[in-house]
C-alpha cells in the first residue's frame, strides 16, 4: 500500500484554525481546513492511507460520511500542490 509523508520544503502557519502551507521552492500557498490540518500534522511521519483514515475517524467521529477514497483524493490534491510525496 502507498505510503505518504509531507515534503521537507513546505512551511506551515496556523491562522484562524486553518493551516496555510507554503511550498518555498514554488512560492505557492495552499489553505487547508481543520481536518486537513490534522492530516498534515500526522504526515510529519510516514503514514499509509489506512493509518490516516483510522486516525481521522477517531479524531473526527462526526465525519461518518468520509470514505477512504475521499482521503486518497485529498492526498492526491496535496501531492499536486507540491506539499506531500509518496514515501518509497
Amino acid at each position, binding site marked *: 500500500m502507498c505510503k505518504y509523508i509531507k515534503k521537507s520544503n513546505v512551511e506551515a502557519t496556523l*491562522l484562524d484554525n486553518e493551516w496555510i502551507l507554503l511550498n518555498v521552492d514554488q512560492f505557492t500557498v495552499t489553505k487547508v481546513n481543520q481536518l486537513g490540518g490534522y492530516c498534515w500534522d500526522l504526515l510529519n511521519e510516514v503514514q499509509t492511507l489506512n493509518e490516516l483514515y483510522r486516525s481521522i475517524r477517531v479524531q473526527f467521529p462526526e465525519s461518518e460520511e468520509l470514505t477512504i477514497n475521499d482521503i486518497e483524493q485529498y492526498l492526491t490534491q496535496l501531492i499536486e500542490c507540491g506539499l506531500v510525496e509518496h514515501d518509497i
Partner: protein
Amino acid sequence: MSEKRAIIAEHIFLINYSDSIFEKEINKFPETEVDSIDMYIKIMGNYGTPFFNYDMKIKLTSNEIIFQRNDYLIEVKADYSEAKIYVNNDFALKHAMMNLYSCYIVYRKWGLLLHSSCVIDQNKAHLFTGYSGAGKSTAAKLSNPRILLSDEASIIKIQGNEITVFDSPFRSETESHAKNLTAGIGSIQLLIQSNQNKRELLKKSDALMQLMDKVFYWAHNREDTKNILQLMQQLVQNTPVYELYFQKNESFWELIS
C-alpha cells in the same frame, strides 16, 4: 561617475552611476547625510533591450544572486552589502531598484514591498491593493486631499505587532511630497469595483492567501521565502484586511474613516 547617498525608508544606499540620464530616476530617492551605508550600488547603462515582458531568470552562485530581465541585470552579494545594476533605460532602472529593495528588506526580515497604493487618513495608513486594473491608483486619486504614501508599491515595516508604512519613492503617476513621512497601519483594502459601496472583513487566513501574490518578490532561496510567510503572518495578525466593493467616487471613504 556621479555619486548619491540616498535613503529609502530606514535604509541608506551609496549609489554610483555612470550616466546623467539616470539622474531623474535617482533623484526620486531622498538624499541623506547619514554615514552608515547599508548597501553600495553601482548603476551602468547600455544593457539589453527595452522592456517587453516580466520574465525573470535568477541564478545563485556561492556569493552572489543574479536577477536578469531583458532590460536589466542585477548582481548582488549574498549578504546584500554591494550590488551592480546594468539597465537599458530609466524604466528598467526603476524596476531594478524595486526588485533589489524588495529582496533586501525580506532578506533583513525588515518588511515587505506590497503592490498597492497607500493613503493617510486621521494619522493612519490605509492600503488599497488588488489585481491590475482593480483601481489602486483610482482609489489613490479619489482620496485627494489626503496625503499619499504610495501609488504603486507600499513600503511596509513589520516588526512584531508594530506595522508602519513609509513614504515610497517607487511611484507610477504621482510624486512624493512628504519624503520622511510614516504612519502606523490602519487597514488594507482588496479592491473590487462595484455599483455600490460595501466593506467586508476577511478571515486572517483568507487575507494572507489574497495578499501573498501582491508582494513584489522573486523567489530565489528557501530562507527568504520563509521570511515572507512570517512577515505576512505578522501583517495579517495585526491589520484588518477587507474586501472593498467601491464606486468610482470618494464616497467609499465613509466606510473607512
